């Protein structure tokens, strides 16, 4: 099979995206659908702009702050485990944004899964890629792949090992397949060596992968390292 273009080839290092002048079929379709929807009054350009603004404001930093606060404030942790959507408001994340009833796809049923010395959670959506966007931003590409979705529910320890996470057999691994309207976030355990750290210091080691459950936070680990596919025409931040 010949490849003219190679998303998903794997292989690690990707050359920088070439300067592409021609417009792709998906770009054409996207423009056509958006323009037609606006011309027919299904939504306005202002609706699109407002939602885009919201979409550009979300990201995993909110989740990191949430975890750091839960680590340092036991009363907050209790509230978080009882009603995560309500607790999110305390750090300025309102799941009702940007429409007043939440996003159409994320609903308002967040549940936080607390890890313990004998229990480790890891999240997948085998059916699509349900993900707590208002709290963690857009899902990573690997989370959307059929590979992760096929294998995690059946061979979780193998998949986690490929992420570099090997847990002893005594630790129960609990896979959460997020297949309906609940959204999930893992509350990992606070690692040793972080005594007396500020919330800000703690938040820096709570990366997105830790909140999905494919990595554990530890001092010095402040980024999730994966090969990155370059975009042909990346999002232009406004």
């Amino acid at each position, binding site marked *: 099979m010949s490849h003219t273009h190679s998303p998903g080839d794997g292989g690690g290092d990707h050359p920088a995206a070439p300067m592409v002048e021609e417009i792709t079929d998906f770009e054409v379709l996207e423009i056509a659908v958006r323009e037609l929807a606006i011309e027919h009054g299904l939504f306005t350009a202002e609706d699109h702009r407002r939602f885009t603004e919201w979409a550009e404001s979300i990201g995993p930093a909110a989740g990191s702050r949430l975890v750091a606060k839960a680590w340092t404030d036991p009363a907050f942790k209790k509230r978080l485990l009882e009603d995560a959507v309500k607790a999110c408001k305390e750090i300025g994340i309102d799941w009702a944004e940007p429409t007043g*009833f939440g996003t159409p796809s994320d*609903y308002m049923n967040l549940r936080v899964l607390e890890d313990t010395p004998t229990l480790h959670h890891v999240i997948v959506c085998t059916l699509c890629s349900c993900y707590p966007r208002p709290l963690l931003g857009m899902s990573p590409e690997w989370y959307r792949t059929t590979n992760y979705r096929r294998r995690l529910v*059946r061979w979780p*320890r193998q998949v986690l090992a490929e992420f570099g996470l090997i847990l002893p057999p005594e630790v129960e691994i609990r*896979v*959460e*397949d*997020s*297949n*309906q309207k609940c959204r999930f976030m893992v509350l990992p355990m606070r690692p040793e060596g972080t005594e007396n750290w500020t919330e800000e210091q703690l938040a820096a080691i709570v990366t997105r992968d830790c909140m999905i459950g494919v990595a554990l936070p530890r001092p010095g680990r402040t980024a999730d390292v994966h090969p990155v596919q370059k975009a042909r025409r990346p999002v232009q931040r406004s």
Partner: protein
Amino acid sequence: MPSNKPSAKNRTRAVEARFKVGDRVRVKDLPNLFYSRTQMYVRGAVGTIAALTYQDVLPEDEAFNRDGRLEQYYIVRFRQKDLWPEYPFENDSLQTESPERWLEPVDS
């Protein structure tokens, strides 16, 4: 006309929940036609109700924009060994959500 739906959380409780936390349930294996959110790998398997979540319409109906009867949803916990007999670790588990329609009671 399609409706601009409020979130499930704002809806009133419409029906009594049939199951409670700790109940043993089996996932039904209804025929697949056009759409489902009940995964094949949990069908026919026995698990335990871990939580009651919210009430909402069934995904098979909502996917065709029918605003049907609200049903209770549950988080069901399975032992991995009950899903995959060859699974080598005793304690590992898996949770997923299911509407009541897809669950039947198991006599213990």
